[in-house]
Every structure is written in structure tokens, then in C-alpha cells.
């Protein structure tokens, strides 16, 4: 790992936030509340891991929220149209979901690698396409998951040994895999190289095109997994869900210290960033802070975090 020093202020911020909110919420640190916190951040964190790779290589993916909704509707479509009663239909449904997501990722990645269209515009377009496709299912109405689909419902609502929520386990696996990819492999070093200087990376023989396609596919596939957790937690696929999820994921990434101009950032930073956003959401809710003020506080925290990021690189 390049440096762990930037994680210190993030851990500090988490400690400060927890102690602060504890003043108003005495049972904030109860085991049940903390497990609930990890469950609440899981969807955002899984998307944010992929988003970290995209931003690190100098890109952006605005389509994740809409892809999340499309994956939900597509997987529930497979789940229910089979007509089968077997909960094992969850397997083809999940594969279909990830495949749809990866398709969008490949599309984003190929356009980003092969054209001069900025990723912001490419993924803005795919965001609209994916949203339209999602709304095309069931005339835009939510699609319920039948009660007998216990495996699919378990993905979002199950607990291992009655303690560890399944989405948290998935989040931890996604974290380990993406962290190893970024920090312990040659491909990861290439990502940093591309983000640092695209031209220099190209001239030094890094396969920039292939790597660019890869990061968008990884980001979309992780979004697909997050989308199925989201769908499972809501007991239904909601074609209009996921709006604004891209911004929440980007917030976790930048709070975690990833530079918006690429080349700087770590996976543990993003995990801590997602935890900070999650603590803010939970703490502000449980402290009874007026909902209008919650926006302001979140905005200030994001601004403060990016301010540190800018100063660090000076």
C-alpha cells in the first residue's frame, strides 16, 4: 500500500463523530446499532469500491444508480418469469443481474477508452438508457419478490449465525478483493499510473485501453451486486430506485481521500469514507436533527474532507 498516513484523520473523524453523537444518543454504540450501521452502509460502500477505481483512473461513473435499478428489475424478472417455486432460481437471477450490469460497464469502458467523449457525458447517457430500460419492466411499477424465494431474500435480509448480516459479508468480500486488486497487483499499479498521467502511462507501455474497460466493468458489476442487495432488502425491485446513489458513492470516495483528478486514493480510505457518511446519516437521524439541517451538515463534511485532500496535495 502506498501510504496509510492519510487514513489517520479519517479514523480520527470517525472517533470524533461517534463520541459526539453519543452525547445525544446514549445507545449509539450498542452492538445492535453498530451492526445496523454496517448493514446500512453496505450498498453504498460496495458501489463506492468500484467508483474508487473509476475515479482513480481519472474517470467518473454517473450511471451506477440507474444500473442498480435496472439490475434489480432484470433479476426479479428472471426470478418471477421462470414460474418456478425453487429458491435456487436465485442463481440464474443473480447471474442475469450481474451480466446486465457488466454489459453496461463494458459499454461505458469501451467508449471511455476508444473515444474522446468525457466519461461524465458517456455515463450520463448510459444513466438515462439504463433508467429507461428499468422503467420498461412492469410499466415502471415495483415488482415484488415472492416469499418462497428465500435465497434471493436472504441476500439482503439474512444474518449469518444470527449476527453478521449477509450484505455486510458481501461488502467485506468486495472490499478485500478490490483492495488486493488495487494495492497488491500489477494491474493496480497500472490504475495509479493511468490516473497520474494518461499519456505517460500509455508511453510506458501500460495497456491503458484494456485497463479502462476493466475498471468500468468492475464498477458496474459491483453496482449489480449492490443492486440485488437493495432489491432484496426492499422485498421488491423498484424501477425508480437508485436515484442519487451515484452522488452518495462519490461522496464516500472523495471523503475517503481519493483525488477527483485521479492517481491518488486507496480502498481502505473509501471504506472509511463510507463509514463516515453512514455515521453521519445515522447520528443525525437518531439525534433528532431536523431533516433540513441534515443536508447542510453532510454538505459541510464533504466540503471539509475535500478541502483536506486539496491541501494534502499542495
Amino acid at each position, binding site marked *: 500500500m502506498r501510504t496509510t498516513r492519510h487514513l489517520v484523520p479519517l479514523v480520527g473523524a470517525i472517533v*470524533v463523530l461517534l463520541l459526539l453523537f453519543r452525547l445525544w444518543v446514549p445507545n449509539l454504540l450498542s452492538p445492535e446499532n453498530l451492526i445496523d450501521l454496517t448493514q446500512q452502509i453496505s450498498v453504498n460502500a460496495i458501489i463506492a469500491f468500484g467508483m474508487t477505481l473509476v475515479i482513480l483512473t481519472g474517470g467518473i461513473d454517473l450511471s451506477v444508480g440507474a444500473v442498480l435499478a435496472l439490475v434489480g428489475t432484470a433479476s426479479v424478472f428472471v426470478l418471477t418469469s421462470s414460474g418456478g417455486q425453487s429458491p435456487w432460481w436465485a442463481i440464474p437471477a443473480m447471474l442475469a443481474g450481474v451480466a446486465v450490469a457488466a454489459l453496461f460497464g463494458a459499454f461505458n469502458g469501451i467508449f471511455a477508452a476508444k473515444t474522446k467523449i468525457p466519461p461524465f457525458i458517456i455515463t450520463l447517457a448510459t444513466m438515462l438508457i439504463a433508467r429507461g430500460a428499468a422503467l420498461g419492466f412492469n410499466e415502471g411499477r415495483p415488482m415484488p419478490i415472492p416469499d418462497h424465494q428465500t435465497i434471493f431474500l436472504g441476500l439482503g435480509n439474512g444474518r449469518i449465525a444470527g449476527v453478521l448480516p449477509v450484505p455486510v459479508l458481501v461488502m467485506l468480500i468486495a472490499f478485500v478483493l478490490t483492495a488486493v486488486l488495487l494495492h497488491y497487483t500489477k494491474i493496480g499499479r497500472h490504475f495509479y499510473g493511468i490516473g497520474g498521467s494518461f499519456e505517460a502511462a500509455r508511453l510506458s507501455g501500460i495497456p491503458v485501453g484494456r485497463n479502462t474497460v476493466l475498471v468500468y466493468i468492475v464498477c458496474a458489476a459491483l453496482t449489480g451486486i449492490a443492486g440485488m442487495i437493495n432489491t432484496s432488502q426492499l422485498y421488491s425491485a423498484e424501477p425508480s430506485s437508485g*436515484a442519487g446513489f451515484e452522488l452518495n458513492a462519490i461522496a464516500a470516495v472523495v471523503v475517503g481521500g481519493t483525488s477527483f483528478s485521479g492517481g491518488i486514493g486507496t480502498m481502505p480510505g473509501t471504506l472509511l469514507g463510507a463509514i463516515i457518511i453512514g455515521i453521519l446519516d445515522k447520528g443525525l437521524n*437518531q439525534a*433528532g436533527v431536523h431533516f433540513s439541517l441534515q443536508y447542510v451538515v453532510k454538505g459541510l463534511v464533504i466540503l471539509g474532507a475535500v478541502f483536506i485532500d486539496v491541501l494534502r496535495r499542495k
Partner: protein
Amino acid sequence: MKTRGVAAAIGVLLVLGMSGCGKQQAAPEEKGKGRLFGVVYQTMNNPFFVDLNDGMKQVIEAHGDQLITLDSQFNSLKQKNDISDLMLKGVSGVFINPVNWEGIKGSLLQGKEKGVPCVVIDAPVKDEDLVLCQVASDNVEAGRLAARALAQVKPDAKVVILHLSVNKACIDRVAGFQEEAAKYPDMKILDIQEGKGSTEGARPVMRDLLGRFPELTAVFPINDPSALGAISALESAGKLNDVTVVTVDGSAEGVGAIKAGKLHSTSAQSPREIGRVAAEKLYEHLEGKPVEKDIKIPVELVTKENADAYLQKRESAASAVPAAPGA
């Protein structure tokens, strides 16, 4: 080191900021031993819910208790998290205005498991056996009233509907409208489109529909905000005189549009009454009394004739002294 200094400065800022909110929003624990309740709305970007919240708050504060109000911003996952935050904080009951009438199931199961009673307000949920009771406007009747009001001026109306189809209250309104419209053989529903239930959502959809259906003579947006969006689109297309708008809600803004001659009718709901009844039902339950499951709050038709009288009645309700605790 510079980084550390900045981090510290931000920490201090946060502390100051938070202690600021703490003072304004006086944490519940500081106010004696009153019970704590929570309410979660699909959006607060609608005066209907602000009024509903006022009605509920009056009853709860009259009991010496506290209410935490949260805004789910039409985001089902945020709503699930919001409700979980409230339940784990230890509220004595939660009022839920669901974003997705099926997607709320996980939260209702959590309430069951933790023994926190859930009262559903305004928009029903599918799993009604998991909730204490549902308090909502008679939405089917609201839709019928709108169709009837339209039929009185245009029995041969060619109508488009601006829907919000994830919401059961709106599904009921449209069902009521369709049921009543079917009684008029010359009335025809051209299309049903998503108007998102908001002014900014309905405006562009209305504009598109105008282009697609030159023959349209009426529109039924499912609430006042989307009616205002439709009116704004009709005005800018110069079609407001040819197209009759009927809707459901009864907000001050909606009635204002009726008085200005832009909106024909709104089937007025009583949000304050919904809030008041919901809170009282929860208290009855906590006192061990049985509570009926499905509570319908009546709606009334507001047109130009009774707009002023309606507004007066509405205002006096807002300033009414809340009922004494236990009354």
C-alpha cells in the same frame, strides 16, 4: 504538520456545528421523561406532509412527548434506514408514510420483531397484517369526486392522467377516477403517464402529452403539486383555456389556483386530521385499547364556489387548540 492542523480545525468546526444543532433541536433526553415517537415521510417537499406533520405533532406535544420527523426523499432504501435508526433509538411507535407500498415490508417486520407499533399514514402498505392501523384519505372517493366534477363541465372530456404509480394512494385515486369516468360514455381516457407527483416532474410530461394528443380537453394529475406543473405547461402552451384540470389534495396552493381560475377542482384531503387521528390511534393502542385497522378520513370537493369557505375552515383548523391529553 499541515494536514493534522486542518483535520483538527475541521474537527473543532464539526463540534461547534453539532453543538449548535443540539441546542436548536433540543435532544429528546433533555426534556423530562416524555416518550419519543418517530415519523418518516416519503418526501417533505409537499405542503400536504408539512400540514400532516403539524396535526400529529400537536397531539404528541400535548401529551408532553416528542416527535422526530424524517424525510426519505422518495428513496426506499433511505426510508428503511431511517426507520431502523428510529427503532434502534427506542421510539415507542413509528408513523410511516411509505415510498414503496411493497418495499416497506422489511421495516414492518423489524417493527414486529422489536415490538414497535407501526401506524401507516396517507399511503397504504400491502402487508397490512404487520401494522397497527392505516390512516388515509378515502382516495378512491377522491378520484370519483374529481371525475364527477369534470363530467359536470365536460361530459365528453378527452382525459390524460398524470400518475405516481408506486404510490397506492395514487393508484386508488386513479382507480376511483376510472370507475366514475366509465359511467360517462363520451368521456375517454387517452393515456396514463408518470407525472412523478411533483411540479417539476409533471411539467415536461404535460408538455409532451400536449404534443401527442392535440384533441385532449382535460387532465387529471393525481395531486396538487403535479397539477401546478401541468397548469404551468398548459399556460406556456397557451392551452389553459381549452384544457380542464381536476386533481386531488386541497393544499393552499391548489385552492389558490382554483380561485385564479386555473384549476377546476381539487378533492380536498384533510392532512391535519390524518395526522391527528394517527397520533390518537397510537395513544389508544398504548393505553391498551383496541384500534380498528383501516381508518378512512373523508374528502370533500373544492371548486370555485366553496374555495373561500374551505380556506377559512382550513385556517381555523390550523390554529385550533389541540385536544387535552387523554381526551
